[in-house]
C-alpha cells in the first residue's frame, strides 16, 4: 500500500491564482488610495524600505541607510536594479519619485506622510540624502508605504500617469488586465532578489462574494484568497481542504463620536459609552472572534500597544456608566443615531451589537444605515453623532495617531481638540530615542482612553485562505501580499 499511496513526484505549478474581493482602482502608486490597488503594487513596485513579516523595517531598494540626526536621512541604493523597461534604477529616480509625491498637482495621498521633507539631494548615482524641515520619527515607516514607490520618470511622461501601466522594479510585471475579471502578472526575470519570485505567473481574480472566494479556494480554482469576513473564516478553519492564515491586522475598528455635538461633547457621556461597550462580545458577534481587542494603538504593533483592559475604561462597568450618565444629566438615557454602512468598513454588524449593548445603560441608539457613498459623504461633512468606522492603523504610532487625533490632523473627523493630546503627539513625533517615545505613547494611550474621543474596539484579523499546496506564503499583518513572491504551488 505504501508504494501505491506515494504521491506522484510533486510538481511545481507555474501559476499562482489569488482571489480578491475588490478590483484594483488604478495602478499609479503615487495616486491610488484604494487598498485593493496596494495589493497589486506590492508585487509591481519597490520602495526604499519595506516591512518584513515581523513588521520590522528592512532594506528594499535601499541597501542601507544612515540617520545622522533627526532631520537627515541618507539612503544607499542597490546596484543593478532594473525597471521593467530595462533601464537601471538610479538616485535620480528616487528624487523624481519623492518630488512627484510631494507635488500638490499630483494630489498624492502619500504627500502627508512625508510632507516634512524639505530637500532631496542626489549625492551620487546610488546615494540619496533627505533633509527634513521638522523631525518626523515615523519617516522610515512612511517610506514603506506603497504610495512612496519608486517609479521611472519616462514612464510617467509617456503615459501622463501610471494608472493603467506598471513600470516598476518589482518581482512581477503587468501582462494583462481585464477589469473586474482578472489581472495577470508575469515574473520579472531581472528581479534583484536572487531566486525570487518563485511562481512564474500570478493571476488576480475579482470575486466580490467572500463566500465565493472561499468556495474558490476549496474547489481549487484559487490558490490563495484574502477574506475579511469572519463568518467565512470561521467556517474555513474547520475545513481540512484549506489552510487558514490569520493574525490581527493593522486596522482598528472604532466607535467614534462627534466631540462637539451634544451630548457627546460631554466627556462623561463618552466615558459612559466606553464603559458600556464589551469588546469581546462585539468580536464574537460581529467578527466571529476573528480579531483582538485593542486600544488606541493596534494591538499587533507589539512594541507600542497596550492591551485595552490595562487602560482606563477598558472593562465594562454598567453601574459606573449609568452614574456618569446621571452626572451628565441623563439619568434616563437619551437617543441618538449611529451612522454605519453595510460594507465591511461600514461596520453594520458592529453597529448592531453596539446598539444592543447600549441598551444596558439606557441609551437608545438608532442605526442610520447608509450606502457607502453616503457614508463617506457624511464622514467628510462630519454629519454624524456617532459612527462606526474602520481606521487604517499603522505599526508606527505617530503615523496613525497624529493625523487622526491631533487637532490639526488631516483625518480628525471627531472634531476632537485637546491640548494635552496635541502636546503629547507633537512630542512623540520629534523623539528618536525608542524608550522616550515609548513612554510618550504609553501616556497618549492612557489619555485617549480616558478622554474617549472615540472608543477603540478591536483589530480585525487579516486572513488569507490558501490551498494546502501553497508553500512559502507569510503574512505581514498590514494586508500586504509581498510574500506572494516567496509562494509557490506544489502539487
Amino acid at each position, binding site marked *: 500500500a505504501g508504494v501505491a499511496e506515494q504521491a506522484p513526484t510533486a510538481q511545481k505549478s507555474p501559476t499562482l491564482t489569488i482571489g480578491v474581493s475588490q478590483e484594483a482602482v488604478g495602478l499609479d502608486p503615487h495616486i491610488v488610495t484604494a487598498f485593493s490597488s496596494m495589493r497589486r503594487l506590492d508585487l509591481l513596485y519597490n520602495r526604499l524600505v519595506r516591512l518584513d513579516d515581523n513588521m520590522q523595517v528592512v532594506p528594499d531598494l535601499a541597501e542601507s541607510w544612515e540617520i545622522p540626526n533627526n532631520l537627515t536621512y541618507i539612503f544607499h541604493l542597490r546596484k543593478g536594479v532594473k525597471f521593467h523597461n530595462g533601464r537601471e534604477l538610479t538616485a535620480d529616480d528616487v528624487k523624481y519619485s519623492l518630488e512627484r509625491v510631494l507635488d500638490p498637482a499630483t494630489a498624492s495621498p502619500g504627500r502627508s506622510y512625508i510632507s516634512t521633507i524639505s530637500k532631496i539631494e542626489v549625492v551620487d548615482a546610488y546615494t540619496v540624502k533627505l533633509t527634513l524641515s521638522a523631525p518626523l520619527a515615523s519617516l522610515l515607516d512612511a517610506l514603506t508605504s506603497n504610495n512612496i514607490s519608486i517609479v521611472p520618470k519616462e514612464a510617467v511622461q509617456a503615459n501622463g500617469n501610471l494608472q493603467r501601466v506598471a513600470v516598476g522594479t518589482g518581482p512581477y510585471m503587468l501582462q494583462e488586465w481585464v477589469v473586474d475579471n482578472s489581472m495577470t502578472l508575469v515574473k520579472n526575470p531581472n528581479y534583484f532578489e536572487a531566486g525570487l519570485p518563485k511562481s512564474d505567473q500570478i493571476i488576480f481574480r475579482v470575486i466580490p462574494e467572500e463566500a465565493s472566494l472561499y468556495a474558490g479556494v476549496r474547489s481549487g480554482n484559487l490558490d490563495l484568497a484574502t477574506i475579511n*469576513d469572519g463568518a467565512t473564516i470561521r467556517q474555513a478553519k474547520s475545513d481540512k481542504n484549506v489552510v487558514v492564515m490569520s493574525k490581527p491586522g493593522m486596522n482598528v475598528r472604532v466607535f467614534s463620536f462627534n466631540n462637539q455635538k451634544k451630548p457627546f461633547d460631554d466627556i462623561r457621556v463618552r466615558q459612559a459609552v466606553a464603559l458600556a461597550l464589551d469588546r469581546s462580545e462585539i468580536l*464574537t*458577534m460581529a467578527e466571529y472572534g476573528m480579531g483582538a481587542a485593542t486600544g488606541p494603538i493596534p494591538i499587533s504593533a507589539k512594541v507600542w500597544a497596550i492591551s485595552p483592559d490595562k487602560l482606563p475604561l477598558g472593562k465594562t462597568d454598567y453601574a459606573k456608566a449609568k452614574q456618569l450618565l446621571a452626572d451628565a444629566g441623563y439619568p434616563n438615557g437619551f437617543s441618538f443615531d449611529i451612522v454605519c454602512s453595510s460594507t465591511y468598513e461600514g461596520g453594520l454588524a458592529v453597529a*448592531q451589537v453596539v446598539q444592543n449593548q447600549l441598551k444596558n445603560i439606557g441609551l437608545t441608539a438608532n442605526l442610520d*444605515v447608509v450606502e457607502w457613498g453616503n457614508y463617506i459623504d457624511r464622514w467628510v461633512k462630519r454629519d454624524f453623532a456617532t459612527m462606526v468606522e474602520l481606521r487604517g492603523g499603522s505599526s508606527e504610532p505617530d503615523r496613525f495617531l497624529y493625523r487622526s487625533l491631533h487637532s490639526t490632523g488631516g483625518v480628525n473627523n471627531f472634531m476632537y481638540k485637546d491640548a494635552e493630546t496635541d502636546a503629547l503627539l507633537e512630542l512623540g513625533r520629534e523623539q528618536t530615542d525608542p524608550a522616550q517615545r515609548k513612554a510618550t505613547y504609553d501616556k497618549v494611550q492612557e489619555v485617549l482612553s480616558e478622554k474617549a474621543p472615540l472608543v477603540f474596539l478591536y483589530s480585525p484579523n487579516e486572513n488569507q485562505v490558501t490551498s494546502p499546496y501553497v508553500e512559502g506564503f507569510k503574512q505581514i499583518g498590514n494586508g500586504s501580499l509581498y510574500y506572494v513572491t516567496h509562494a509557490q504551488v506544489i502539487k
Partner: protein
Amino acid sequence: MKTPRLLRNKIAMAGLVLILLYVLMSVVSLFWLPFDPLAMHAEQILQQPSFATGHLFGTDEFGRDILSRIMKGTSVSFIISVSATALGAVIGIFMGVWAGYLGGKADNVIMRIADILFSFPSLLLAIFIMAVLGEHTYNVVLAIGIVYIPQFARISRGAIIALKGNEFIRAAKSNGAGRNYILAHHLLPNITAPLIVQISLSLSTAILLESALSFLGLGVQPPNPSWGNMLSSARKVMMFAPWTAVYPGLAIVLLVLGFNLLGDGLRDILDPRLRNVR
C-alpha cells in the same frame, strides 16, 4: 355570482389561503412573538433549529430568533408591497387612462415618458432611486412604485383603448355624456378586471424587488428585519448555517407564490376567453 367563482377556483383559493396565513402571522406579530426579534445573545449565535431551545427556525449570527424576525418582517413586506403597488397603480393608471382616452399627442407624450422609464432595467432604476433618496423604508416604496408606473400605464392604456371601441361608449356620447363622465362611469369600472390581475402580480414582484434591493444592501435597514436583509446577512453564514437563508427565503417564496396563485386564478376567473360565454 362572483364569490362562488373565486371559491371554486382552486388556484386562487390556494393563493388566498396562503396570503391570509401571512396576514394572520403579521397581525399576531403585532401582539406576540416567540422571542424579541432584536435582542442579541452572544451565547446563542447560529443555533440550529430545535424544539428544545424554542428557536424553531434557529438563530442568526447575533443569536436572534429567526422565526420571530420572519414574523416581524411580514408586516414590513406587506406594507412595502401594498404601498408600492398602490403608488405605482394610482399614478400609472392615471397616466395610462388619460393617454389611452385622449389619444393623439397626449398619448404620445405620456407614453414616451413611460417608455423612457421602461427602458431602464427595473432593478437598476430602483437602485438609482434608492441611491438618490437614501435608504429608508419609505424610499423603498417610492423606488418600487416608480418602477411600477410604466407597467400600470401600459396595461390601463391598452385596456382603455380596447374599451373605447365599444359601442356603449358611443352610446354614452350620443346621450350627451362628457369626457369625464364617460371616464368615471364607463371606462374605469370596466378596466378593473385586468388591473386586479396586474395588482396581485405587482404585489408579488414588489416583495421580490424589495428583497433584491435589501440583498444588495439598499432596502429595509437592520436591525429591523425584512426578509431580504435577513437573506443578505445570511449570505456570509449560509454555507455552515443554511437555516439562516432557507427560512427567510421560504417566507418570500410562499407569500410571493400566494400572490401569484391569486393573480393567476383571478386571471382565469376574469378572462372571458377561458370561460364559457353566454
